């Protein structure tokens, strides 16, 4: 395609042609096959490259990479041949029976059954605090190890921020630093704020559950008052221990 032709395409696409000239252009599209296919190719190249250079592809790839990282440990389904199917079915039911009976004797609830957090949200609208934003992102993506230095930094300025303290403790539990977490929980439990007190009691019991200290877990659970948001969950957990 020569430059003159492209100039013409551009003028048409930018709607710069006078009415008459635009009509001529459209007529030519109807009658001149080469003209039409050139115009279509030109548009197709332009459209394609426009999409190549916008930022959305990068965003999508980021999302996909995150999901991949999360799912990569999941087991792939095995493919069995039909001949083996009966044998496998029998074997599977035996395994299931054994598993069930083991499960009945060994059915202590686990930390993961109960540990569910609300998303951490620190940034208020209009606030452009990158450190807080990063912290939110890491925490909500469950990259807990990365949150710890950020918690330290932010708490240096606001050492009594209950929310930061609570979430830091959660991150500590997740990264198996339960001892440090207990110190924070205890601080919140003796504090004045009722909401954080009940949160701290609940998550402290879950931390005990994680380290399999069931007695301490029970004791902490029993301190959760009946008007706490966690009282139902706490009773459920207590009865299964």
């Amino acid at each position, binding site marked *: *395609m*020569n*430059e003159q*032709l*492209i*100039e013409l395409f*551009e003028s048409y696409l930018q709607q710069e042609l006078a009415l008459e000239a635009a009509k001529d252009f459209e007529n030519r599209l109807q009658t001149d096959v080469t003209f039409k296919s*050139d115009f279509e*190719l*030109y548009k*197709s*190249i*332009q*459209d*394609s*490259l*426009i*999409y*190549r*250079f*916008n930022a*959305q*592809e990068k*965003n*999508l*790839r980021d*999302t*996909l*990479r*995150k*999901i*991949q990282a*999360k*799912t*990569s440990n*999941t*087991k*792939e*389904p095995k*493919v069995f041949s039909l001949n083996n199917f009966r044998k496998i079915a029998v074997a599977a039911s035996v395994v299931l029976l054994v598993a069930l009976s083991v499960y009945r004797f060994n059915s202590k609830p686990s930390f993961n059954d109960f540990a569910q957090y609300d998303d951490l949200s620190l940034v208020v609208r209009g606030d452009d605090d990158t450190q807080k934003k990063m912290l939110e992102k890491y925490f909500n993506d469950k990259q807990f190890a990365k949150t710890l230095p950020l918690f330290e930094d932010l708490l240096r300025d606001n050492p009594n921020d209950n929310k930061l303290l609570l979430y830091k403790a959660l991150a500590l539990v997740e990264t198996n630093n339960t001892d440090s977490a207990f110190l924070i929980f205890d601080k919140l439990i003796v504090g004045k704020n009722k909401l954080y007190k009940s949160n701290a009691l609940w998550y402290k019991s879950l931390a005990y559950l994680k380290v399999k200290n069931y007695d301490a877990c029970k004791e902490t659970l029993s301190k959760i008052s009946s008007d706490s948001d966690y009282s139902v969950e706490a009773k459920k957990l207590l009865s299964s221990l």
Partner: protein
Amino acid sequence: MKPHKDHKYIEALIQNDSRLLSELYQKFTPKIIAFVKKNSGDETQANDLIQDVLVTIFHQATEKQFVLTCPFDAYFFLLCKRKWFNVLKKKSNKEVTIEDDFLSISEKQAEEAIVETERYELQSTLYEEKFKELGVKCQELLKLSFVVKSMEKVAEKLNISYGYARKKKSQCMSKLTQLIKSSTSFETIKNY
């Protein structure tokens, strides 16, 4: 044509909806990973393949308003499978054929959509490759004109006159169309 109910996965790609995309991964990718592993690949290669195919579908959907009219499973699996065979083919320089006899019925239904996506991918890869063959100045100006759209602003940013910017754009696009038209894959795509 009426969209299939699985078109929601195409929408999820457009919207970058991580919840639905996670569902897509859980439902459809284990089979693909198993397939790649069985055919001299590993999990990382499988994941790269999956990501590339999804990005192609995403581009096709945003640019061409692609509508899925068949089940996603068959469409996605066969796309990945054929792309993987192409990767192997390139590596070994040997002819790898896919036996069409083994296509299931649902895969046959998906064939039309697959051909469309493959054609789209060939085309956009060709455009991108040829774009990269242009001189740096051309690439810079065109890229800017695609992102910024208004040629007045492009001229301003590059500190050149509007007339010159337009002239340059025509020159660069003319060069690009020539490169594309004279390439061998251009004909292949036409007849795909």
